[in-house]
């Protein structure tokens, strides 16, 4: 029994008491393997579905297939697993920000099945966000099972996300950078080491089960200085595409929510629309990696107008799939849109300056991919490392950096929050460690209440009150009703000095005459950020906390600052 019990609490093992980073590294290997396996399962499922449905593509009615897939996906999420959630990555970031990375167990498999249905049937979405939430949920639940603390759990959530991305793209550095830059938002060695280990584990699992292949191989590019200058224009184009995709996704989402129909019908409408687009432009269907491969290899032979149209069509198809309730992520669509945008740009350059020896179109496709990823995620490092790793194209690192940096900056200027974080920022849920909002969210009114206040009654004479003041070290005195005990108001010594130093008043003034009855009060459920806003607006240093009309204590700025400092030190310390 003792052995069994000790399994549940590995943090108590002697070896891990010496350095609990060892514990995280060990668990990170397990999490990385599990999340890598989840990615492989989804990848295999998508391949199988592609093979099943591929021979049906010449039938006219094939446009209903994405509708059926999206509807089934929505029904599965809503009725069977009852997820009631969005695309995944925002939920992971929300949980890391607010609840120490707690995620539901059902999330470790639900999105894999739902996204397989959506993408496998032709929906325009990617498998990356689903595997990120699956990996993150695996990490979170393993941490929960082992009774690890919040910070350890957050690290394992990052490990799960890193393992999943590393596995699905065979790109360990991109997985690691994504987990730290997007999911955790905190570059600290306590996170970096386990996440790096999980990335390696996830990649290895993928390589063992699927082989060690670069997803998008290409030939070498000879990049001239003219090409590097031209990258600025490409960055502007990819930024525009990113903004268009972000806004279209949100507007589709809003439009779909206005439709008085069940979720699965909305998803089916979106899927059907995508299927119709796919009848004319099949490039928009599915995750679209074959399109990316063709553009990078220079085999996408269409002209400027068709490529431009395909870019717009893919943006619309992605917005229709995800905005109307399909399940999937935006990584793969970004790669496709980016490669098509790059190709469009290359064709445009070649048309305007035909005498300039521009680098091969594949190079611009590759740079466009980096631009879209960086623009949508506003995570330039993820964009750079992902493209370098999935294409093996280190020789394009300079223009990659330029495109990623400019696209991120432009997108940030126009849309201050990345696609994944837009709603979180709007609702104040993006709470990165060490920030004011995060520190305040980790404290609550109940733990700041000071209860050593002396309550007085409204019918008390000033003389009796002065005797109480002599015994108290506080400046605030709550006034309560003698019979009901209800909070009536407060006396602040600063407000009644003229009475305190006038003995004539001592036996003539009752507290009801001098108390402040128009008091802003705080409730134990209030957010501290709201409490501070009230204090600042009214220039208050203390406020009474009231429950059911009864005074239960004071909350003061001094005590708040003490606790704030302590919490900030905890959050910014390196230790786990």
């Amino acid at each position, binding site marked *: *029994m003792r052995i*069994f019990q000790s399994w*549940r609490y590995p943090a108590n093992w002697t070896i891990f008491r010496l350095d609990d980073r060892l514990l995280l590294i060990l668990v990170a290997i397990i999490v990385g393997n599990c999340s890598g396996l989840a990615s492989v399962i989804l990848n295999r499922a998508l391949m199988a579905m592609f093979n099943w449905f591929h021979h049906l593509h010449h039938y006219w009615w094939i446009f209903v297939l994405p509708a059926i897939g999206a509807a089934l996906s929505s029904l599965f999420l809503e009725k069977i697993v*009852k997820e*009631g*959630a*969005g695309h995944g990555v925002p*939920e992971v970031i*929300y*949980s890391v920000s*607010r*609840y120490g990375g*707690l*995620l*539901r167990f*059902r999330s470790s498999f639900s999105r894999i099945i739902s996204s397989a249905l959506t993408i496998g049937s032709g929906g325009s979405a990617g498998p990356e966000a689903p595997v990120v939430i699956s990996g993150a949920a695996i990490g979170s639940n393993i941490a*929960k099972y082992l*009774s690890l603390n919040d910070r350890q759990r957050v690290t394992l959530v990052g490990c799960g996300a890193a393992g999943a991305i590393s596995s699905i793209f065979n790109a360990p550095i991109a997985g690691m950078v994504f987990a730290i830059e997007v999911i955790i938002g905190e570059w600290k060695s306590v996170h970096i080491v386990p996440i790096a280990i999980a990335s390696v584990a996830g990649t290895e699992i993928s390589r063992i089960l699927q082989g060690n292949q670069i997803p998008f191989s290409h030939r070498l590019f000879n990049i001239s200085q003219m090409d590097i200058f031209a990258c600025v224009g490409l960055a502007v184009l990819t930024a525009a595409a990113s903004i268009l995709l972000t806004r279209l996704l949100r507007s589709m989402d809003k439009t779909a929510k206005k439709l008085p129909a069940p979720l699965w019908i909305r998803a089916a409408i979106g899927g059907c629309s995508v299927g119709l687009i796919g009848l004319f432009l099949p490039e928009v269907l599915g995750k679209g990696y074959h399109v990316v491969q063709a553009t990078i290899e220079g085999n996408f032979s269409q002209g400027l107008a068709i490529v431009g149209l395909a870019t717009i069509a893919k943006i619309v198809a992605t917005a229709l799939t995800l905005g109307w309730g399909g399940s999937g992520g935006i990584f793969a669509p970004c790669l496709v849109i980016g490669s098509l945008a790059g190709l469009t740009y290359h064709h445009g350059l070649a048309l305007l300056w035909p005498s300039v020896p521009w680098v091969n179109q594949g190079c611009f496709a590759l740079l466009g991919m980096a631009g879209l990823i960086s623009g949508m995620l506003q995570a330039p490092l993820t964009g750079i490392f992902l493209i370098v790793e999935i294409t093996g194209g280190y020789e394009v690192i300079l223009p990659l950096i330029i495109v990623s940096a400019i696209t991120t900056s432009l997108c940030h200027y126009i849309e201050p929050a990345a696609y994944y974080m837009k709603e979180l920022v709007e*609702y104040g*849920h993006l709470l990165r460690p060490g920030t004011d909002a995060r520190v305040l969210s980790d404290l*609550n009114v*109940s733990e700041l209440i000071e209860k050593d206040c002396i309550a007085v009654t409204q019918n008390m004479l000033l003389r009796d009150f002065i005797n109480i003041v002599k015994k108290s070290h506080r400046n605030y005195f709550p006034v309560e009703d003698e019979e009901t005990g209800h909070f009536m108001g407060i006396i602040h010594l600063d407000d009644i000095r003229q009475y305190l130093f006038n003995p004539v008043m001592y036996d003539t003034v009752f507290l009801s005459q001098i108390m402040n009855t128009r008091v802003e009060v705080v409730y*134990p*459920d209030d*957010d501290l950020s709201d409490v501070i806003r009230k204090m600042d607006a009214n220039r208050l240093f203390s406020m009474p906390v009231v*429950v*059911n*009309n*009864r005074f*239960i204590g004071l909350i003061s700025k001094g005590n708040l600052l003490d606790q704030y400092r302590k919490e900030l030190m905890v959050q910014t310390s390196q230790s786990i």
Partner: protein
Amino acid sequence: MNHQLLHIFRNSPLGRETLLQSMYFSKQVKISPVIYIPKSTKFLMYFENDVVQIDLDNSYLMSSDTALEHATEILERAGIEPRFLEPKHYTASTLPDIHTNFDYMSCPRSISDLSSKIGLGYIGARVRRIVKSAQFPVLITSPVYKEWESIAVFFGGSVNAFNALKVGFRLCRISGIPLDVFTLLENKSQESYEKLIKDENLETEMSRYVNTWHFLRNKTIEENLYDVPHNALVVLGAYGHHLLKTFVFGSKMEKIQSTISNNLLIVGPNYTAAI
């Protein structure tokens, strides 16, 4: 009265009985009830080391236009100021988070399954998860409103049993309602249980608060339960000593909840009691 009880309101006759029980409990132990009227069938409860998704039975959303009115009426009749919980945070647009900074929670035996399943011996999976994860005791109400006039604590010597005993002391201290302790003598002697109390330095509280300490001598726990007053609030720990104590309820807890129809206050493994 700054301690709070969370109650999820079901706008149905069964929900009314449950709310009446919550009101009675709140008044007896001088706590303030906070009522959540759900607007969707799903919500999340984030505990310290677990997140529990509550998938409510559809009857919780029945006649949503009258829910607030009905709940307010019951609260006002009980002389309690209505306080309703509005979720401030959402994990997803249709998935509100309900905070868990409460001192008690009240619910029927099941909140996710059809109410027709509710009966002796059945405690729903979600209620079990809440008991397991919560840092507060959970009041599982009897199907019909029943006032309790005494407190009966089941004490078997486990960590949770000590927590249950301390909760019993506290309820007795606050409410002034008589407290009885019940212990099933299995293979142990009466003295061994008294020694446990002594080792935990709870002798003073035992003599101060406990009316009678009943040592049950019949072979099976079911045979002994007739001695528990029908109008007692039964307080007990959810998990015992056995190997899987953090996974499944203790066998005695299961037998007790299968046999008696009293209101049950269940103390889970994450609750740390203070007297």
